[in-house]
């Protein structure tokens, strides 16, 4: 009883941390820092998954926790790190919308997300049910981030962050998806990142920059 209560507290703490990180991502400019934040996000996910697994005693969740550790804390950040090393794209230039406004929009989104999550929270039986709203918020925030950023890499990081949010939602709402699906998702993700990696180089060799405003030639004029 106490244990599960404690765990619930911890989980809420972690969720709060997740939300904080998302806001941090919205505000950060340096790509390097974004990657670090992304790694932290992964770590929190890993922890929360472990906690849930411990609490619910589900072996599946241990696996997916392990998966998270490998993929999202180690592999992806490392790949991304190497990428920006090779591409020399540490700095992101000004976002399209200036930071404060983005933050405000983010706040609104969070409220909206909580509002949406209400019915689900009502029904959910899981220990983590209160965190669903946060998961949704994280998804929307990273969506916002993708919209506001100008660089290919930052958009990708936003995309990955969104995927984290989804994962968090899965664990918190339903103790995670079935293993097959988890694996499938993970695989897709990995492939996606590889493809993106290839793309970065091709884009750079074609446009010798990763700035997205080069990619605006296909349009109706």
């Amino acid at each position, binding site marked *: 009883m106490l244990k599960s209560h404690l765990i619930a507290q911890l989980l809420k703490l972690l969720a709060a941390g997740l939300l904080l990180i998302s806001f941090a991502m919205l505000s950060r400019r340096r790509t390097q820092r974004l990657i670090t934040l992304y790694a932290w996000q992964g770590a929190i996910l890993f922890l929360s998954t472990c906690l849930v697994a411990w609490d619910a005693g589900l072996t599946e969740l241990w696996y997916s926790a392990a998966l998270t550790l490998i993929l999202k804390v180690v592999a992806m950040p490392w790949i991304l790190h190497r990428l920006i090393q090779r591409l020399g794209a540490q700095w992101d230039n000004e976002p399209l919308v200036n930071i404060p406004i983005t933050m405000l929009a983010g706040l609104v989104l969070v409220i909206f997300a909580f509002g949406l999550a209400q019915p689900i929270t009502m029904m959910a039986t899981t220990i983590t049910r209160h965190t669903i709203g946060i998961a949704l918020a994280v998804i929307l925030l990273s969506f916002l981030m993708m*919209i506001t950023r100008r660089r290919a890499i930052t958009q990708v990081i936003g995309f990955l962050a969104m995927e984290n949010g989804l994962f968090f939602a899965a664990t918190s709402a339903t103790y995670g998806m079935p293993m097959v699906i988890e694996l499938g998702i993970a695989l897709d993700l990995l492939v996606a990142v590889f493809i993106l990696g290839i793309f970065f180089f091709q884009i750079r060799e074609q446009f010798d920059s990763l700035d997205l405003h080069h*990619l605006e030639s296909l*349009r109706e004029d």
Partner: protein
Amino acid sequence: MSAPRWLSAATALHGPTLHSLLFLVAAWVILGAVGLLRPRSVRFVAHLLFPLGAVGCIGVALLAGTFLATGHTAEAMILPLGLPDLPFHLRLDALSGFFLLILGMAGAGISIFAAGYFRRGEGTAPALLGLQYHVFLASMATVILADDAYLFMVAWETMALSSYFLVTSQHRIPEIRRAGFLYLLMAHVGAICILLCFGVLQGGSWQFTFDAMRGASLAPFWATIAFALALLGFGAKAGLVPLHAWLPEAHPAAPSPVSAMMSGLMLNTAIYGMLRITFDLLHVQFWQWGAAMLTLGLFSAVFGAAFAAVQTDMKRLLAYSSIENVGLIFTGIGLAVLFDASHMPLFAALALAAALIHALNHALFKSLLFLATGSVLHATRQRSLGKLGGLIRRMPWVAFLALIGTLAIAGLPPLNGFVSEWLLLQSFLFTPRLPQAFLNMLVPLGAAVLALTVALAAYVMVKFYGVIFLGQPREPSLVDAHDANWLERIGLGWLAAGCVFIGVLPQFALRAAGTVTGKLIGQTVTPGASFWRIAPVTPEQASYSGLIFLAGIVAAIGITFLLVRLLAHGRMRRTAAWDCGYPWQTSRMQDTAEGFGQPIRHMFGAFFRMERDLPSPSDEAPRYRIHIEDRFWGWIYQPIARAVQRIADAVSILQGGRLSVYLLYSFLTLLALLVFVL
């Protein structure tokens, strides 16, 4: 769409006539396909297949005629084709019989002519032309025979499509491409309107057979919607003002036999559809419908005649005259609806009969004239009236046959054009008895408009014939114009004979139309007791006898001629034209087409948008040019085009090329939907 309850009481299953008609229709398609065996051989396609097609036309005409004369129970059958729950239904009743009769009679002449007309090296390969031509014929017949919405639409659009390809057979000329595009666009939009009309008509019964639609009872509002949609759709095909813009472009662009088919036959399918829906499926409900058709019809008639009077291209002139005639036909139909809705069946039947007969007449003389222009075109390579003239001496055959057509279309007794116009005026005479206030005072004025139109048509036709065939040749090259070949002459002769026959013995046509009105309105029109004249109401009231007219005129002329020969001496010498003694006559001094249209330009100035450039007095080689345009372009068509363009420009902003914006779209969509379900 469950098992269709299509069989109605008055319908005999698998009638023999319908079978043989269907066989002939199929035969046309096969004929067309056979041509592909020897795609480039003009002799094979033109001199063998087209005459066979003409034979098919005659067969159709005979079958339909006998059916009208004898058959009274409609025949129906179902083909195992079409949509799963909606096999193709076919039905032959009086109305379709009458229009098949038209198709056959005029089609035969046109096909024979076409056999002599198509030459090598003119646009599409002859075999392809043959295929398109016969598919066109077959689809028109199918439209008339169709008894369910789907088959009707399929045949309808096939008709539009095949005629489009025929129009664009000389697709290397940009104007022709433009005309074809405009035509197909209007046809398609019109077809969608008709489709929606059927959507209303099926009244939620999910049965698209016409029988189901006859059964369905619609609320007045929906009925009117259906009628309006039908009027839009069929009006667009018939070239009713203001939906006419495509017609004067497309009809002249086609090879002459095709122009003849489009003006003479295809317009009639639109008339047929209008009748089928208004009388048969919707069984007339409100007099307002009639008023609408009447107004549109009269306006189109005057508009068409006025525009025809100022044309300088002989085929455009005929196209505008088609608009005029369609206007007259719609006037008749509108009058019929008006009377029918006011429970005056006899007068309704009279008006409807007039409209039907005029449709028949128009098919005959309009195709005759279009074919004549075709011969002229081949002989002179000229379409512009300003470059023709004096052809009566070079091509007497065509000139003589065209004269018959000209007199007929000008509505002069004893030819057929007069009969239908006479009947129409007769039915107008009863309009003061209409119950609706105002209407019974306004509609009679329609009779005056009608008279004006008919007289204008005479004016137009005098211009048409006089400028092309009479006077001096306006171009030296015209001297070596040659007369039409024998196949062409047969075709023209056939149609001319039709004009004379119906003019002199109108009672047959009237009896045929009478059976149709009997089926549609429940009131037959009879030619009257005596065989030699028609007296649709009573002989005391009015009667007309083309036979006696002809006999009388011939006798009078003959006797006069003989007397003059007997009494006066026949001495005669040829001299130069006197012309008030002016010595330096040249062919340039005759009235040009523009000149002949000048009074009309004065009187109907409101219709036209004119740009004139008058030469300066000091000009050595002065040239007077006038360009006349249809105001409706500026009023309807261009605004629509501009609007679409503007919207398209606005829409294209959505595809701005910036990824973030795209993401924003999907983000906002997401949020909007979430709010929506919240």
